[in-house]
């Protein structure tokens, strides 16, 4: 018998880190400044956190905390988002993979009305779809990474943009093919930053916004390896202006802005990679990490002897 635990830190302005409602409380909810246990269940999948809401698949179906967002009215969109096969960009655009093509909608309203902006039939065998502020990235089952979005922020697109291969149509990123430690198995994106994790546990990062200071050094349009004390990387997640990484040896590292406590450490200034003093406890192992726009999550698996 196994049990799983969800720990969270950061923005809680909409009580999106409070799964167990005790009573109606008129007090304004406060943010969490370190990783706290927020949910326990025999089965917990990686949560999806929007600005105001957290969704997580459990043994009892999807549990929700926080303020319900408009897009949650659509069960199919909710399912696709939880399966990482749909994503919402900062500019409101929605992309959904339906098994045959990626359909893009300009806004939530257009999605409701079924008005597609673009249909990309070239995108097949999508295993993951992620969004950043002004665009999207998709991963195929063969490990290819596709990007598309607003051409003003070319660093996020990370490939040659031309008349035949415009910024706002998906095309593959050549620099993420034939990597030394195997193909890409996972993507993460938010703000103006994107990450790709390889099967050989290397993490690459690219992106940036020419007018905004980034929170990681030396970020460019060209994917570069994230180096954290020579650790192999097991998992990664990105928020609006912070990121969380899980190393193969079980360490959780965070970087970026801590305005809402999303780094899970006691610092007021922007921080480079710092190890979070988080322990999964006896018999526990961290299985994955996740980010909302302004909060962070850690999932722990416990064996029965320590329940």
């Amino acid at each position, binding site marked *: 018998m196994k049990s799983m635990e969800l720990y969270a830190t950061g*923005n809680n*302005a*909409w009580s999106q880190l409070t799964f167990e409602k005790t009573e109606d409380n008129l007090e*304004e909810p*406060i*943010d969490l400044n370190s990783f706290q246990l927020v949910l326990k269940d025999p089965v917990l999948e990686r949560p999806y956190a929007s*600005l*105001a*809401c957290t969704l997580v698949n459990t043994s009892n179906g999807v549990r929700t905390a*926080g*303020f319900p*967002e*408009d897009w949650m009215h659509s069960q199919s969109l909710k399912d696709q988002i939880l399966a990482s096969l749909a994503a919402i*960009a*900062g*500019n409101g655009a929605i992309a959904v993979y339906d098994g045959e093509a990626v359909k893009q909608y300009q806004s939530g*309203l257009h999605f*409701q009305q079924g008005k597609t902006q673009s249909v990309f039939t070239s995108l097949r065998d999508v295993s993951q779809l992620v969004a950043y*502020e*002004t665009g999207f990235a998709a991963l195929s089952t063969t490990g290819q990474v596709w990007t598309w979005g*607003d*051409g*003003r922020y*070319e660093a996020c697109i990370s490939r040659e943009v031309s008349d035949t291969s415009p910024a706002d149509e998906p095309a593959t990123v050549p620099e993420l093919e034939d990597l030394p430690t195997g193909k890409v198995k996972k993507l993460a994106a938010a703000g103006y930053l994107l990450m790709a994790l390889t099967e050989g546990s290397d993490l690459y990062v690219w992106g940036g*916004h*020419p*007018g*905004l200071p980034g929170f990681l050094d030396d970020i460019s349009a060209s994917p570069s390896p994230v180096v954290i004390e020579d650790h192999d990387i097991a998992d990664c997640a990105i928020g*609006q202006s912070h990121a969380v990484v899980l190393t193969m040896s079980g360490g959780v590292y965070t970087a970026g802005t801590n*305005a*809402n406590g999303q780094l899970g450490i006691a610092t007021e200034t922007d921080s480079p990679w710092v190890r979070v003093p988080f322990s999964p406890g006896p018999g526990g192992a961290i299985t994955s990490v996740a980010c909302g726009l*302004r909060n962070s999550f850690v999932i722990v698996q416990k064996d029965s002897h320590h329940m």
Partner: protein
Amino acid sequence: MAYRQLLQFCQDAAHQIRQECDELLLAAETKSSPQLQQSLLGCGPALVSLLSRQASVLARLELRDTSTTDLLAKRLEDILSISYSKFYCFLFKDLPVYWRQLYTDACILKFHLLLFQATSATGSDQGTMFLDEPVLAELVKTLDLALILAGAAGEQRGRIWVGKALDLLHEAWTSTQPENDDGSVRPTKRAKLAEKGDELSAPVDMLSAASFSTFQPFTPPVENPIPRHRAMSVEAFQTYMDSPSDSNLGPEPLIFTDLVEEWPARTTHPWCKPFYLLSRTFGGHRLVPVEIGRSYVDEGWGQKLITFGTLLQDYIDPSLSPDHVAQSDKSPASKQIAYLAQHPLLTQLPALRNDIRIPDLCYTSPPPHPTDSSKDQPEVDEPMLNAWFGPPGTITPLHNDPYHNLLVQVVGHKYVRLYSPLHTEQMHARGKEDGVEMGNTSSLDVGALEGWDRPAEDQQPSPDEQASEEMMRKALKDVPYVDCILNPGDTLYIPIGWWHYVRGLSVSFSVSFWWN
């Protein structure tokens, strides 16, 4: 009195914000309509609810309850940064107005909170209070950010609310300032600019106050002077534009020497006096956007927001600074140029708007673009006003505009050179750069080609660059142009499509009127 009025004004706004949000949230539960999506609800119900909650917390605030005010301040910053991040997601013209309103309303609540905290700190609720300089600066900045970044959007409050709040704040502030014998206040008394007891902090009347330095480090020669006229009647100007000597070219540039003689900015409300400008900008606390760097096509050029006082003291006229002597030791080349350029300053500061008049000549029907009708814009109801204020050496590179322009020189001197639209092909227009259309700007650098600007020693041009520069110099050599030095009080008529290069020679303050 004004202070108490201001607090009430803020409380009314908080109440109104809460009501507007709650009505929208209620409406969203019962129906979903495209109209609702265009309201604040476009930001999503979660943010509308968060804003409403903060307005409601503000209404219930009790003095000295710091844990509540800390959380409130944080949540307002959250809303500000969330909405501000959307300003980058969209081109400004595509930015949905609800994001600008959310930012503006959060600024209004933040202003209220700051005012509340200031009251709480001084324990004053007597209808008067003394505002500390840093508090005042923060209050002014909060509303200026709403004006400059978000265009103070919103139907119920918006620009009108922000303007009135600033007026009341000014009234509250000046009522606590010591008065001079003649009843005029000395708003600069506590301002940083006058800390060390220079002439600005001494009792002064407007006329004897110091003017900006008229020093011109460099004066280019005028080779093909533009004709100078005394003001024309509207009819004569219309006739001038309708019957050009070259019908392919249309009307040509002119200078009017006495069009603005009656402007308060040139007489009773002198813009040439730092003292006066400071009195109209909260002792220099108002925030303005400036361009830093020689010219907007240069490497390292950038835009930032600074206070008007900093602009005056650190960039426009260092002789105003109490530390002037120490500063003059530094090489002037190490100092960056700041230029308040193409900013609707007079919309942001209505007090200065009253010092000028829209020239009657703008109420004419000028001809369309002489060579390229695709440049013609939809007719504007009112002329578009922009302010241009900077130290000697500011440069606006060779470019053209899609409007007819009256450029009024209010303070100081400017050199302007113009090439006609018939020579557009020789102007080497730029293309799209980093996703931004630069086709109205020439790649020719008049200052460099004429040898007026020397490249910095560490930026010597490569042989390739030298060769291309030499080629351009030859290409431009035989292209005819007209030029002039605008004196204070001069008005230059720049017809639509004419390429112009503008160079500030001294401290210079100009206002441009675009019309069609």
